[in-house]
């Protein structure tokens, strides 16, 4: 197998502690960034969901931020805030804004008129309608946005090493690129990151299913 020639297992065995450390840091980066991104994006989406111009404004700004290449984004935050965990988390969170905001708005706007009408007819207040009807019905769209965001965040977080935030980039850069492009740590970093992205994605699918039981009920009766 080509993989056997690419990966020097002795390096993996001798550096298990570093690999574990890098993986944990990576999880922390992604977790913190996703937490912040979700906490910021969903309220913004709720605020602009019915307003055309504010939505266009928010979408344009978050879209422009999304266009900034990751290396440049980290470079800007590095020159403004210095190195560390926090600037890296900010950079990663900024990338998620557009995906989550746009999907949430699309989901909220997709709640059909008759459903809203029925909720109003049952005497639900605005707040109750939002939390008990609109947001639950928008969950599949919201989850679609979060899933896209988490997969890309796991990937981009490999660059956070340049701003001193650790993570799997430590393996790729410090152990791989800077040691004369030593292949083994690059492969190890890539494999762990890919598995991490797939596991996150899978867990989100499970969480979505648990939170939207009516979808399965509907599929069952159909």
């Amino acid at each position, binding site marked *: 197998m080509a993989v056997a020639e690419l990966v020097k297992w002795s390096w993996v065995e001798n550096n298990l502690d570093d690999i574990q450390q890098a993986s944990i840091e990576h999880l922390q980066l992604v977790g913190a960034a996703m937490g912040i991104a979700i906490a910021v994006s969903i309220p913004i989406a709720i605020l602009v969901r019915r307003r055309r111009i504010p939505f266009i404004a928010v979408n344009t700004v978050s879209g*422009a931020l999304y266009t900034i290449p990751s290396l*440049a984004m980290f470079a800007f935050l590095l020159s403004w805030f210095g190195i560390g965990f926090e600037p890296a988390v900010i950079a990663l969170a900024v990338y998620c804004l557009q995906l989550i905001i746009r999907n949430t708005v699309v989901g909220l706007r997709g709640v059909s008129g008759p459903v809203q009408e029925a909720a109003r007819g049952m005497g639900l207040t605005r707040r109750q309608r939002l939390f008990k009807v609109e947001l639950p019905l928008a969950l599949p769209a919201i989850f679609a946005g979060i899933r896209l965001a988490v997969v890309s965040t796991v*990937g981009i977080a490999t660059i956070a090493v340049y701003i001193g935030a650790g993570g799997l980039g430590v393996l790729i850069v410090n152990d791989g*690129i800077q040691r004369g492009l*030593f292949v083994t740590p690059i492969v190890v*970093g*890539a494999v762990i*990151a*890919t598995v991490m992205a797939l596991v996150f994605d899978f867990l989100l699918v499970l969480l979505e299913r648990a939170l939207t039981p009516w979808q399965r009920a509907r599929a069952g009766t159909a």
Partner: protein
Amino acid sequence: MGAVWDAFQANDGWGQTWTHVKLSVTALVMATAVGLVLGVLCAKVGRVAAFLVVTVSNLGRTVPTFAIIALILALTSLGFWPAVFGLFLLGIPPILLNSYTGVREVDPGIVEASRGMGFRPLQVLGRVELPIAMPLVFAGIRTSAVQIVATAALAGLVGAGGLGVIVSSGLSNNQDDVILAGAIPITILAALAELVFGGAERLATPRGLRITRRPVIE
């Protein structure tokens, strides 16, 4: 800002910008050709092949681009063509998936009508399906272009040339001005790619399909 400009010139900013553009454009042209052809083939030919290609493209997106580009450069060399090859591979999926979806989702009624008008299969593809799919294809090219410009910066960071080289040298010497002298032009290039291809996307929409705000009779 003056210091950043000085750093840009001291680090062969224009030369590296030109390298960055050459890398990106070459990779984008190749990715467009391959992505479009594969996408159309997948939409036309058997389902199994289509499923395979689409799955591989989607899986490819879960591998960090930085790791892919570093790996390709590590396994080949730090030259222009290895970098182009890596960027080309990473640029294919958005174009492929959008071309596939675009051709796939053309209204079967329209295809039927054009057949009824006596179009041969290739004519149906060239005159009906592809024009209708064009906006989506261009959306894919735009995504791909922005991504290629960003990933070319990472290739430079590894040492393959382009503006990432300037960022890399600033990082290793702890010089903020030099870091910005690389990062700002990278951002400008990405923004340009977005604007140019966003415009192309609008122009690519066949006239009959454009939604106009102006009255139909001018």
